[in-house]
């Protein structure tokens, strides 16, 4: 497999004031045809990474190539190979939905007839035909996002960048968009998706890189990342009382790998030990145990283990 995106030692400092080091040496390789998730909290550097790859941000140091084209050397040429759905609704408010698609095609050199045909094809494909004459301000968030994806792929790019595509969407629109993204994989489009939702990264991505404070912490398939946690079960204990000494007590229970203080209680990582739950509950009861949530490790667990903090706060 060959790389669709290659990022080496990427550093970005925004001039400020105050100056911000948004990326502190990022290395990434996204393979052709892959759906790649960039997972990290707000301010991690996801948008900056996408910005460099899409010619919107100039790197301070390091290199990035997309489809073998250096992002700094020839931005107009690179833009023919990429589609971009940015974090915000950037639809042209002065143009209808259909015109957004039509003029995008014109910018990419299609003739009037080709552009009209492509716009109509996309409207049908994205079930937007009855909204063709709507203005972007009349669309719900989910529909607007669908138009943005349609516009981004209108010129048939090899690589599609989606920056937090479902942030702020209702659950139904979110699912619809997930279907669209899975459709991209079937069409052989390489997708770089950023998100701060661990379930989204997990469900959609072939591989995930976890990014925090401008650095990539790990990069692997979601399954491998979760295996790396070294536990099959995660118990979240919510306590009404204080947790003094409880972590130590829990850590001594056979099968428990780790017990660490967490928001409102303690998080226990364990092998799926038979009979583990009653012993944990018994130990925690004197501390005012209110609630126990039992789950398998998620990418959030991976993130917490790596950084000691939650993805969203």
């Amino acid at each position: 497999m060959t790389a669709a995106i290659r990022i080496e030692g990427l550093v970005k400092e925004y001039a400020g004031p105050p100056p911000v080091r948004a990326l502190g040496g990022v290395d990434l390789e996204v393979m052709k045809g892959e759906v790649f998730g960039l997972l990290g909290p707000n301010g991690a550097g996801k948008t900056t990474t996408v910005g460099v790859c899409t010619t919107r941000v100039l790197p301070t140091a390091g290199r990035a190539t997309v489809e073998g084209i250096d992002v700094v050397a020839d931005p107009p040429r690179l833009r023919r190979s990429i589609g971009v759905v940015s974090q915000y609704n950037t639809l042209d408010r002065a143009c209808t939905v259909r015109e957004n698609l039509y003029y995008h095609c014109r910018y990419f050199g299609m003739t009037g007839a080709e552009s009209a045909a492509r716009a109509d094809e996309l409207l049908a494909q994205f079930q937007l035909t009855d909204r063709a004459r709507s203005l972007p301000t009349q669309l719900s968030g989910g529909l607007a996002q669908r138009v943005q994806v349609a516009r981004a792929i209108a010129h048939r790019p090899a690589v599609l960048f989606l920056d937090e595509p479902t942030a702020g969407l209702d659950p139904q629109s979110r699912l619809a968009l997930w279907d669209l993204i899975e459709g991209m994989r079937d069409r052989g489009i390489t997708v770089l998706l950023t998100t701060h939702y661990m379930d989204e990264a997990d469900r959609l991505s072939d591989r995930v890189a976890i990014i925090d404070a401008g650095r990539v912490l790990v990069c692997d398939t979601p399954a491998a990342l979760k295996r790396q946690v070294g536990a099959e079960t995660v118990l979240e204990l919510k306590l009404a009382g204080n947790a003094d000494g409880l972590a130590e007590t829990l850590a001594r229970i056979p099968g428990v790998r780790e017990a660490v203080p967490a928001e409102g209680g303690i998080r226990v990582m364990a092998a799926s030990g038979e009979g583990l739950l009653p012993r944990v509950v018994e130990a925690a009861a004197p501390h005012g145990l209110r609630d126990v949530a039992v789950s398998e490790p998620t990418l959030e667990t991976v993130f917490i283990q790596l950084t000691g903090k939650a993805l969203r706060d």
Partner: protein
Amino acid sequence: MTEPRRQYARAFGGLMLRDTRVLVRNFAPFVTRTVMNPLLSVFVFAYVFPKIGQGMRGGGASGANFATILVPGLIAVAMVFQGIAAVALPLSMELGATREIEDRVLAPIPNWLVAVEKIVFGGIQGVVAGLAVFPLVYLVPATPVDVHVESWPLLIVVIALASLASGALGLALGTIVRPQHIGLMFAIVVVPMTFLGCVYYPWAALGPIRWLQIGVLVNPLVYMSEGLRAALTPGLPHMPAALFLLALTLAVLALSFAGVVAFRRRTID
């Protein structure tokens, strides 16, 4: 043309088509904002004032009536207003709150050409606005206006330079002024420009106020008004052609450069 050039030309054409579509859709507001200022200016200065006996004579010894003096100035103002209304105001929105410019910035075309397209399209709107002033100045005034073109090449060059300067001014203001200061921009830039732009009086008539006559030379509108005066009302006093042509060319270059640089800074981090 080499292949990249052809692609740039197509993308540039696409941007122009998009702007044309938006202009056609918003034709009524376009006409209103174009016609209102010259219509009322001509009505008050060249119809109401003569009727109520208010004297306004900038023509001095030439004996030209005030309506004639107004024609070139009002055309110049209409062009400058167009640069601001057609380029600066929308651009300020598109670069700011809505970030709508993004799809055009990500078109396969160098960043500076996206900015230049704004200048060119703003300039075309400026020409249309300038032409729209003519019927008004013929129909409204109480006294006949005396306009005749002595040199068509001069008129065409002046209109081309003035419209490009207006578009470039719009680009520079739209990219440099923050959206929250757009209102203030009218007070600080647009109003002084028009009142001190040799619109209502020929530049030569400022002779008695020497410091003002020198001071207004920083105002590009002065050269537009004077250039149009030379081309349309050659009987009135006006600057030498070499001076306003040079100044207009410099204004186009300087404002375009400032606008293109600021556009890049606003769109590429």
